[in-house]
């Protein structure tokens, strides 16, 4: 990863404009086209230190990578059956989601949530769906986003075709 500093506002403005342009083109279906955003970061920064598909380990591994890169302060996760209730605090990309909401567009992609989903899919071969992203009120200066992930039992099997 390059160590050259660039303005976070510059990055977030670009991300917002790209997301908004994509939403304007693809509408509500946009969310399904960005489920793998973050894959390269996942391969470079998360996968090499990901040992199991245990949820606690996955969340801590993703949190550590993103903390080291100064992208967030904390990820909390509560398991509720097949649901994972994720709370991300201090995310550097929160202004993107704020601008999306201000534009009347529901946030439809989230890097930390994608990284957790990619990790669970990689280690457990279980499909994961990001069901919801909600901006949460600022809490003592710490800004948060709430995410709901759904885990599925198994990926649909593809029976091999005849040669």
């Amino acid at each position, binding site marked *: 990863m390059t160590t050259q500093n660039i303005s976070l506002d510059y990055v977030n403005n670009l991300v917002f404009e790209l997301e908004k342009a994509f939403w304007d083109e693809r509408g509500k*279906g946009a969310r*399904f*086209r*960005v*489920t*793998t955003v973050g894959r390269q970061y996942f391969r470079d920064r998360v996968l090499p230190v990901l040992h199991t598909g245990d949820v606690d380990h996955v969340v801590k591994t993703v949190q550590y990578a993103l903390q080291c890169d100064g992208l967030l302060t904390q990820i909390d996760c509560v398991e509720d059956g097949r*649901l994972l209730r994720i709370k991300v605090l201090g995310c550097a990309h929160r202004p993107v989601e704020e601008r999306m909401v201000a534009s009347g567009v529901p946030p439809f992609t989230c890097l930390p949530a994608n990284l957790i989903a990619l990790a669970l*899919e990689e280690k457990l071969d279980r*499909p994961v*769906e*990001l*069901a*919801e992203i909600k901006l949460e009120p600022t809490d003592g200066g710490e800004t948060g986003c709430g995410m*709901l992930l*759904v885990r*599925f039992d198994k*990926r*649909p*099997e*593809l*029976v*091999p*075709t*005849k040669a």
Partner: protein
Amino acid sequence: MPETYTVADATLKVILDRRSIREFTPEPVSKEDLDKILEAGRQAPSGENAQPWRFIILKDETRRKQVAAIAGGGSSRRFTAEFVTKQMQDRFVNLADEAKKRAAFEKLTSGQVSAFVGDAPVIIVVCGKKDVWDMPYDTSAAIENMLLMITALDLGACWVIAPCIDIRDEERLNQMLGIPPEYKCVSVLSVGHPTRPHRPRPRLPINQLVFDERWGTPYYEAEK
């Protein structure tokens, strides 16, 4: 005696008769019919005449079931996400019959709403060339042309996007079918002989859809 129609009336009849068919008899689709369907697709309008469409015909049952598994899995994920966030319940809020509502939830969250594609004797996979300005529109026009020909041939079909709407599923489909990176899978059509007639689905009144010169100015007068 055969019914006689003007070309305009026959065209409108085919358009009005089209349904989304999800249940098929085992009877195969003849090569002659399939040729006509594909020719209808080939003749669709295309920006700059780029003709970005390519079609893959799937008859092999194992392959059809693989597409069905991808489609069903994707739909199950998306509709389950809608269910756990209560969006699905909101969508069905006006359905009073609780048993029907539960059945609808089950059909959607199980993925069966899309997994039926494997039951059709033929699946047409519609692919589009990416390096073209108007690919989504061109391929959609080709799909509609094929749907109308399918209807005219007394066959049935359903336009299904479930196997490729999520990029993760599209990647699996691309790999399974060997679709090269300069093309993308746009949709699949399940084609076969319908098991039964289907009623038309409701359409919004035309006076809510058409404006006169400027957005919001009704073109048609509201019904009294």
